[in-house]
């Protein structure tokens, strides 16, 4: 299985080539097009959560916390090679991170798009709900071996960190677990942090790879959202 990302960085499309009877899991709603031999199964995710009600509950929790979609679709190329193409909701890039055995990748909830079965996406809650409106942060963890497809709002910068970096909470895409994070105020005091418009930021320390996106989804949402007609509820 391979992902090819086209039209980078702003209007990226990921084409996933599948060998006969190979499978890829992806967020519901991400599919753009596919060959005719693809069999699609929709399921509340994910198998690692256990069965029935437990899985449903976990899925709802993720949706509430991470802005992530509740369902996963499983795409299988029946008997022949085939492909499925995926796209995110917003303008921006997609990137593939190859998860190595023994490595853990923490992915910001709404950045995850797709992965094969050889990669386990664990959804145990890690993150926080911020004091400032619109600031929530929720990480999924990817372990195992294989490619993980992620999306960004805007372009993606790949940084190999050895030391320390301060990143706005709305601009983080993912980082490997060799990097530790703490949530700190952007400025010295609470009031100045609020007035600065930066609120809380992530202080990332250690060694590893991190991905940063050039736009902040909640900033864009707030800008356009207030220009839209009001909703019913």
């Amino acid at each position, binding site marked *: 299985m391979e992902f090819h990302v086209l039209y980078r960085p702003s209007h990226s499309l990921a084409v996933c080539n599948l060998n006969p009877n190979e499978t890829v899991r992806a967020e519901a709603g991400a599919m753009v097009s596919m060959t005719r031999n693809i069999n699609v199964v929709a399921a509340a995710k994910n198998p690692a959560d256990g069965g029935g009600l437990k899985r449903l509950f976990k899925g709802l929790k993720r949706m509430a916390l991470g802005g992530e979609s509740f369902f996963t679709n499983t795409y299988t190329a029946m008997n022949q090679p085939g492909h499925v193409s995926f796209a995110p909701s917003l303008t921006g890039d997609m990137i593939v991170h190859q998860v190595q055995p023994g490595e853990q990748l923490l992915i910001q909830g709404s950045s995850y798009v797709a992965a094969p079965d050889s990669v386990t996406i664990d959804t145990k809650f890690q993150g926080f709900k911020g004091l400032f409106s619109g600031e929530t942060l929720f990480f999924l963890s990817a372990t195992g071996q294989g490619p993980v497809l992620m999306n960004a709002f805007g*372009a993606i910068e790949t940084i190999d960190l050895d030391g320390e970096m301060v990143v706005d909470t709305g*601009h983080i895409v993912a980082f490997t677990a060799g990097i530790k994070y703490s949530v700190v105020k952007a400025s010295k005091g609470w009031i100045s942090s609020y*007035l*600065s*418009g930066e609120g809380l*930021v992530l*202080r990332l320390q250690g060694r590893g790879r991190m991905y940063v996106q050039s736009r902040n989804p909640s900033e*864009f949402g707030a*800008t356009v959202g207030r*220009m839209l007609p009001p909703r019913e509820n």
Partner: protein
Amino acid sequence: MQHQIEFGPSSAWLKVQLAPNETIQAEAGAMVRHTSGLQIDTRLNAGRKAGLGAKLKAFFAAIARKFLGGETMFVNDFHGPQGGELVLAPGTSGQIMHQLLDGQRKLFIQASAYLASTGDVDTKLRFGGLKSMFGGEGLVLQECTGQGDVWINSYGGITEVPINGSFVVDTGHIVAFEGNNLNFKLRSAGSSGGFSLKSFLFSGEGLVCEFTGTGRVWIQSRNLNALVSWISPFLR
């Protein structure tokens, strides 16, 4: 100060290398990331050396800006004893352009297009028309003068158009223009050859800004009002 604009035209950000104690002023909320050791000072959007009177004026201008220009009242100064790297980005997709002010140039920019500046760049709020009458399509500008760098962001790509004579731009597509030898006035889109009520009501073009004289205008290829009209039928 070294600076680079990366990922344009649609996902542009501004990366600057600050020398020890060098300062850049940025619109509140624009910070993407910075190396440790940089500090943020937040202040009202008035000149650095402004007295109390100027500060009061700036305070009311800032409030006006907040409501009319959709822009924040505060700016952040980034600096550090060892310097460092800072990355800034605007809220929407789009491009960033750099302009150098030499003390003589007068640059008008769309109020929400300000991203950052250095040195003694002074910004003053200017109104181009009666905004409330035309459903948010009026023109709120910032007049930039002084000496230093200015970084301006757009929604869409930026195209530079040289003007020698007259030229009209939809108010939602103006990024910036040179104010020294260009005059501007607002009018409805269809009224060049006499006023047409039908064009005024139904052309979908709303207000345009007519420039006369010589100078450059920078236009953006997208417009948030047009995005809103386009997405509205899909809303629930």
